[in-house]
């Protein structure tokens, strides 16, 4: 398609925008429009669209601007709250990552040194009748283990559990 705009197009567009067509159009311009395909297209299309716009505007249903304003305020407030909560979420993720790392380090350490403190569990069914002393992990002390390692492990597990519960409850 060849792009051949008319040099008088702006003149015609202005005429249409001011509503001067066809009554206030000079005869010389009118004869140009009749002969020029670009200008006659412009007249035809602009008048069709202006008429369609007038019709659509008259049938437009005006809603409530006030209700929209309140909805926008609510949306903006929610977005602001979400922005404020973003660092907190970051801290939660960081805490969870640190805890998981600690658990991983502990498990690797245990795997290297053998899970010998678990041997007290194997002794449990052999002891008849069950005494509370049996439940006490004696292997813990015999194998060189102490509370100094067990307590941090339990604390870590508790912390991980706490963070997980908090994240789940917050999502809900």
């Amino acid at each position, binding site marked *: *398609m060849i*792009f051949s*705009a008319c040099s008088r197009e702006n003149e015609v567009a202005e005429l249409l*925008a001011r509503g001067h067509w066809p009554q206030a159009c000079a005869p010389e311009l009118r004869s140009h429009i009749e002969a020029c395909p*670009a200008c*006659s*297209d*412009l007249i*035809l*299309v*602009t008048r*069709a*669209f*202006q*008429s*369609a*716009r007038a*019709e*659509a*505007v008259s*049938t*437009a*249903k*005006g*809603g409530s*601007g*006030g209700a*929209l*304003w*309140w*909805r*926008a*305020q609510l*949306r*903006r*407030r929610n*977005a*602001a*709250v979400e*922005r*404020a*909560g973003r660092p*907190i979420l970051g801290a939660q993720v960081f805490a969870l990552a640190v805890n998981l790392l600690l658990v991983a380090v502990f498990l690797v350490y245990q795997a290297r040194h053998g899970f010998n403190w678990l041997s007290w569990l194997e002794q449990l069914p052999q002891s008849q009748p069950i005494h509370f002393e049996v439940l006490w992990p004696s292997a813990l002390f015999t194998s060189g283990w102490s509370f100094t390692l067990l307590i941090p492990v339990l604390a870590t597990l508790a912390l991980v559990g706490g963070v997980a519960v908090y994240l789940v409850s917050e999502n809900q």
Partner: protein
Amino acid sequence: MLWEAIFPNVLTGDATRAAELPMDSDAFAGFYERSAPSLWAYLARVSGDPALADDLMQESYLRFLCASQPKLFLADGEVAARRYLFRIATNLLRDHWRRPRAASIEDVPEEFFAASASSAQADSRAILSPALALMRPKDRQLLWLAHAEGYSHREIAEITGLATASIRLLLFRARRKIARLLREQNCQVSAQRREP
């Protein structure tokens, strides 16, 4: 919420300030009254779906109010604010067209079929609507913005995000095509009238 108890100022400082809207309720009501009919007309005629136009118009105003720039646009005057609003609506229409979905006849509201328009309006609809339906969505947008809203090429470029130089060529092509379609429609309507 637990964090609000721990940090009582977390939601009363910057967050609340950020939640302030760029216009007060009365100013917005006036702006809405002046701009809503033309925005609805644009959305309804370009999309061809009045129900969709209702939804997109509401979303356009919400995004306009929630955007961070409206203060700048308002400083430039209402004309710039309207242009910004049309830009949001244009982007929403584009997003809608990118998600094609099957429309059922039951989705179209009943008033769409009601014969409430005057004969001149019905003529205009009978001629323009089928011609618009044959145009590409982008061409419909360009034609409406240029010929119904009277925006300049630079303003259309700002609204649609296209280059000003390409607007001129795209608009020329679209106008030539729709002019041909309108003439064909005109002939068909005239022929139907002549038939008994």
